[in-house]
């Protein structure tokens, strides 16, 4: 993955830049020791690494503003970083950039149950937002798999989803307002405890802009009352096609499960060996979860189980208690870890129309043979967000490149059937060069206009999201 060459003029004034940053931040908030900046050389896309010029860890919006003002004056690129869990390389630095980490911005600023929102600093982790309100039986709905570690700042940057978005939506549907620092240091408030924008929906375009429009330091998030109960059922089928049809029939029947998760045989085998959740060995497995009171759960599950039975399941298992429910989720939740135990893997994130599921799974199987690399599929079936895991050997020369080529082919297939390159992980550097398979140059140009307006000097996370060739003149002009 190509990154722009560092600007020698910036490298030459490294000392001055660091000294100016030290003028406005506590001593330990500026990291420039080459041993320590290594901690910021990559995110969860570990195949690509480059230590930044420096990393800063401001503790307030005012400090973020000072940092950005200085970097703006000096013409230094800034790469915002949440917890560094991006699978797409969203927080990958260049040698001439400053990493702006929000790790020290972790406070809860306001909790308001009457108006059903929480206001937090954005370095707070996703799970600890729910943690702050669960004693009052509330929760924050978006639940990416990395929720233990990932920061709200990164969730907003990538518009993160999770397993339960079929019912609750993704980050953008649960974000009410932000405090954001523009690249020139200006602090803006957008949205708040009220609903919808009074003018253009700037909040809507900021969410998912991968840290390219501003640095969000505070967020007002919608919180919801926890449902009275929830229960998963596990279903096994002897083909991916039948499982896919079952998903479609459940959706058409008028019930709205909070989650429909899908795993195929390679994934079931790997997770079973790892987590021993007691899954049946079959071609395809669904976990369907519904919520509500006991009677509501019963009513919805009866509809769902009836539909499942019409598709000749090889296994149909309803959780009888909390322990069984946890076991049903155990395998799914440890799927990525399980795959990591047996292999290096690359996790894709394309979304497809649910109706194309059987076709896409068949084509992935065929391509897997052609490339000679295994694939395990685990994904959010209700919304078509796939997570094919391509298995490769990082120590074998050429295998990573082969894996990337295979991944690109799968993503092109997703676009071909009417889907998209990324459903919840973001483009980062990983899918940057595939953007032109989904969008025309004019479609992309319209997106660049937005960045032109928010960050005219193109200093915020400039080498991400768009193919480098498309942004070259803007980035060069800026430098």
């Amino acid at each position, binding site marked *: 993955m190509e990154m722009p060459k560092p600007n020698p003029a910036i490298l030459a004034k490294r000392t001055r830049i660091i000294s100016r940053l030290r003028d406005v931040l506590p001593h330990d908030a500026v990291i420039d020791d080459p041993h320590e900046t290594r901690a910021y050389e990559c995110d969860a896309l570990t195949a690509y690494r480059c230590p930044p010029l420096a990393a800063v860890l401001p503790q307030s919006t005012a400090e973020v503003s000072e940092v950005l003002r200085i970097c703006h004056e000096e013409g230094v690129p800034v790469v915002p970083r949440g917890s560094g869990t991006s699978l797409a390389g969203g927080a990958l630095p260049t040698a001439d950039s400053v990493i702006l980490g929000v790790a020290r911005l972790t406070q809860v600023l306001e909790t308001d149950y009457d108006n059903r929102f929480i206001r937090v600093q954005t370095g707070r982790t996703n799970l600890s937002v729910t943690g702050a309100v669960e004693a009052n039986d509330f929760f924050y709905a978006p639940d990416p798999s990395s929720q233990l570690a990932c920061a709200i700042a990164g969730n907003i940057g990538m518009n993160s989803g999770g397993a339960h978005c079929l019912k609750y939506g993704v980050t953008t549907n649960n974000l009410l307002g932000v405090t954001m620092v523009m690249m020139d240091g200006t602090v803006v408030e957008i949205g708040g405890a009220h609903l919808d924008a009074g003018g*253009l929906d700037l909040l809507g375009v900021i969410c998912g802009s991968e840290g390219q429009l501003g640095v969000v330091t505070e967020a007002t998030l919608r919180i919801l009352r926890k449902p009275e109960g929830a229960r998963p059922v596990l279903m096994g089928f002897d083909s991916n096609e039948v499982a896919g049809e079952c998903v479609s029939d459940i959706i058409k029947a008028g019930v709205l499960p909070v989650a429909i998760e899908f795993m195929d045989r390679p994934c079931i085998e790997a997770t079973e060996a790892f987590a021993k959740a007691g899954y049946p060995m079959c071609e395809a497995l669904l976990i369907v979860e519904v919520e509500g009171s006991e009677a509501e759960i019963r009513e919805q599950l009866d509809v769902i189980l009836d539909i499942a039975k019409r598709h000749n399941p090889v296994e149909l298992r309803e959780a009888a208690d909390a322990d069984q429910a946890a076991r049903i989720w155990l395998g799914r939740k440890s799927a990525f870890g399980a795959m990591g135990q047996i292999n290096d893997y690359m996790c894709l994130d394309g979304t497809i129309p649910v109706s194309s599921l059987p076709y896409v799974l068949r084509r992935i199987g065929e391509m897997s043979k052609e490339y000679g690399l295994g694939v395990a599929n685990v994904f959010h079936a209700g919304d078509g967000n796939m997570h094919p895991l391509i298995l490769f050997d990082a120590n074998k020369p050429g295998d990573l490149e082969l894996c990337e080529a295979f991944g690109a082919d799968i993503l092109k297939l997703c676009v071909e059937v009417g889907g998209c390159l990324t459903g919840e992980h973001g483009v980062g550097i990983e899918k940057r060069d595939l953007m032109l398979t989904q969008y025309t140059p004019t479609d992309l140009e319209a997106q660049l206009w937005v960045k032109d307006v928010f960050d005219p000097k193109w200093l915020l996370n400039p080498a991400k999201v768009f193919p480098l060739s498309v942004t070259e003149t803007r980035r060069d002009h800026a430098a």
Partner: protein
Amino acid sequence: MLQPKSEAELADCLAAAKHPMAIRGGGTRPIGRAVAGEVLSTAALKGITLYEPGALTLVAQAGTPLAEIEAVLHAENQRLPFEPMDHRALLGTDGTPTIGGVVAGNVSGPRRIQAGAARDSLIGVRFVDGSGTVIKNGGRVMKNVTGYDLVKLMAGSYGTLGVLSEVSFKLLPEVETCACLILEGLSDQSAVAALSRALASPYEVTGAAHAANRGGRSRTMLRLEGFAKSVAYRTDALRGVLAEFRAVEVISDPDLVRQMWKDQRDVTAFAGQTGDVWRISCKPSDGPAIGAKIKGEVIYDWGGGLIWVLVGEGHDLRKTLGAFGGHATLIRASEATHARIPTFHPEPAPLAALSDGLRRKFDPKGILNTGLMATAMPAA
């Protein structure tokens, strides 16, 4: 009036345009001030392009009548989640509301508090910018973070960034039945407290409204929707939650409940009445204090977070309210009033600069509904 029959014709119209144009869908929602210029109508861009009930997805051309879409969805027992209001009664217009108009105005209804706004269900757009370039963003899948979300930016941009040609939505199943709980005679303060209590319960309230009705008895309404047994269960449970707020009457005839919420959605109480109509979005618990400042009629929705106001003509309500967290939109007024008072809430300078910057990029000739969303008034 220009009425292109295809997206390509629409693009030609805009590429050739040298003067401001008034962008129109069905013409049923002329919110705010009148826009100068030749009318450019999307009414001939008609038809549902794709409907997949099993994927909860619909794609339609922008000029497709909303009623046609709702009928097609109804036949498959599905619906648009956000319950778009019909502005015809309130604004005294006739004509056929289009799906493009719904998107352009980000038009939602009472269910917005639970199911999100139009912008939350919108998953893809195709539009033509002010130079005549066709642009697409998003698509037909409900999880999509590929590039910037211009879909949200287009929702509620009132035709000032581009003319929509096609829109895609995620859908929800239609519900089996609905019920309504009614509390009478509550003050605004107690009513919003009751609505908050209900919305903070696990019983999935999909409508929370309060008509202040000064001089008469006020009426506070809560809606529950879903499978029959579930609605019955939650109705009982919610009565328990609201026990301290007066007697609760339950209406369980679904036709009657639907009619009551249609009236609420369309603000029919203000239809045909003289006066200006404002729409305020605020933090729900701020609602009663805001309502108390207003010398006119107020109807609360969204648990107190949406206030519909009917006041005497020509009055700048924003001056009465002063600074508050949220925004006030002047929906209906005389031309003279519209000429004096901006339709949309003024933004702080840095945000206004961003909005203006975006408009200049997407509409470099300044021809799309020029001035409609301007919040600075031309110098007198």
